[in-house]
């Protein structure tokens, strides 16, 4: 008897049940985000859902300097953290991939450390370091940038490592045997092959920085606050629909970024490839 998995799936009642359950899970997962988006168009002063009336005034307020400034602050912080952590991750990932040396396991553990450690704890530690060194004036942008580079680095290192594994080992030997120097090989042979991975790493790093709260609550200071921390602060007082509009903007920015990069360099395969690693 020939068994067809496709036919089993199409006819089986359990599969229909599974589909129903999956629809429920999607509703659970996306519902609150869609509700937030709907609330931002409220005509009312409160965050009613379903929205009562319709207006754009919360969006106008969300784009006023009070919220635009922290938003731009987060963008600047995320962009710099992404570039810096990727630049640091490149040589690190390359060395870990290419050479065998003493202390390599320790270095690998050190590299992935910020991913394993609760981010909140890294934030507390950095705050303590800054205070004990008398660097209080560096809290705010500088402190946040240092912290974000540290917590974003593992993402960049991991993504670059994954793409280094896809480079056939012989291409470097081929380049060398044709007379290319070590640096020329890297620049003209290896780097073009891992470019997508490097961009993906930078995008992951940016998103990790842009959405972070746990580290930033310890290192921010008034006037130099990422937008997530500012939203969190406001959530304690009131829930005007302005926050809903700001929230939607902070969701859309990474979404647009991922969509654009995906168009240019096929990021999607990369995310799925990461997913397969678990």
């Amino acid at each position: 008897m020939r068994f067809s998995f496709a036919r089993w799936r199409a006819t089986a009642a359990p599969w229909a049940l599974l589909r129903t359950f999956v629809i429920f899970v999607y509703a659970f997962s996306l519902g609150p985000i869609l509700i937030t988006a709907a609330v931002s168009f409220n005509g009312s002063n409160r965050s009613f859902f379903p929205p009562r009336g319709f207006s754009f005034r919360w969006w106008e307020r969300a784009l006023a300097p009070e919220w635009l400034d922290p938003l731009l602050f987060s963008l600047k912080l995320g962009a710099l953290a992404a570039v810096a952590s990727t630049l640091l991750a490149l040589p690190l990932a390359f060395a870990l991939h290419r050479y065998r040396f003493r202390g390599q396991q320790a270095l690998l553990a050190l590299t992935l450390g910020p991913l394993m450690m609760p981010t909140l704890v890294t934030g507390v530690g950095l705050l303590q370091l800054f205070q004990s060194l008398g660097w209080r004036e560096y809290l705010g942008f500088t402190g946040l940038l240092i912290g974000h580079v540290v917590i974003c680095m593992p993402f960049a290192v991991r993504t670059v490592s994954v793409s280094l594994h896809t480079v056939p080992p012989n291409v470097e030997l081929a380049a060398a045997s044709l007379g290319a120097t070590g640096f020329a090989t890297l620049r003209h042979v290896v780097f073009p092959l891992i470019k997508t991975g490097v961009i993906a790493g930078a995008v992951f790093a940016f998103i990790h920085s842009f959405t972070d709260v746990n580290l930033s609550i310890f290192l921010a200071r008034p006037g130099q606050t990422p937008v997530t921390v500012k939203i969190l602060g406001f959530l304690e007082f009131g829930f005007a629909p302005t926050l809903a509009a700001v929230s939607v903007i902070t969701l859309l920015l990474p979404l647009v970024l991922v969509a654009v990069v995906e168009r240019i360099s096929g990021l999607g395969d990369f995310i799925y490839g990461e997913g397969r690693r678990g």
Partner: protein
Amino acid sequence: MSEPHLGPQATRPWILIIVPAAVLLAFFVLPNALLLSASFLKSEAQQLTSQPTLDNYRFLFTRPLYVELFIRTFAVGVSVATLDVLLGYPLAYFLVRTRSRWKGLLIALSLAPLLASVVVRTYGWYIILNRFGFANDVLLGLGMIDERIAFMPSTGAIIVGLAHALLPYAVLTIMGSVNGINPHFESAAMSLGANRTRTFLHVVLPLSVPGIAGAFLIVFSIAISAYATPAILGGPATQVAATAIYNFIIQLLDWSLGAALAVILIVASLLLLYAAGRLGARRAA
């Protein structure tokens, strides 16, 4: 590959490593070492002294308030991890096995919440759960309740919010594991006469145990150190480890107790992740 570079070039990795390693040592290892040392020092008048002591840990492990805090944090972690495995497993299985034309889009949609900050994702739950929120409106409208209920602040609200925020991690981890199960195993079991339920229970489920356990432990470890969701959906009566650390450090300026609590959290997280890693290693073997 490494052979051609032994010899005169063996110093080369160090040139590549030195700057990133220095950054990590200065801004990751050193702060954590400081924190560890602070947890064994006495605080007086909101200042760390240099007197070594174990009192911080003794205090946290004996005061009913903090014992309760550990139990609550642990319970939140277990509940969130259980919920996410129960919700994430069917979704992950579906995403791996579906032949839908929309497969790519469906996978993207299931991971899209990761692009939003936890603050943003939790805000939606505030709109639903607050006293004048959507859930109350619906229940009142259906006549199931007579007066408005405070769904939040509560531990239950924290659990729902965190389960929502961390679901993509469970889905990603389980998808990785289900992806490794050969669909022919299922066909084989069924052609040998097992029905669908038996096939799932005796073939698919046992093979995905490492993925389930990995997802459980990873979600658990993130949940016990989450700050934003408990801060928004919880209150003073439903403190968890992360919100308590924030209060110690920022409000009470008690570095000793804050550091001790942070160290306890680190140890718990690392143990969970170590266990998850061991399971992964066994799967690979």
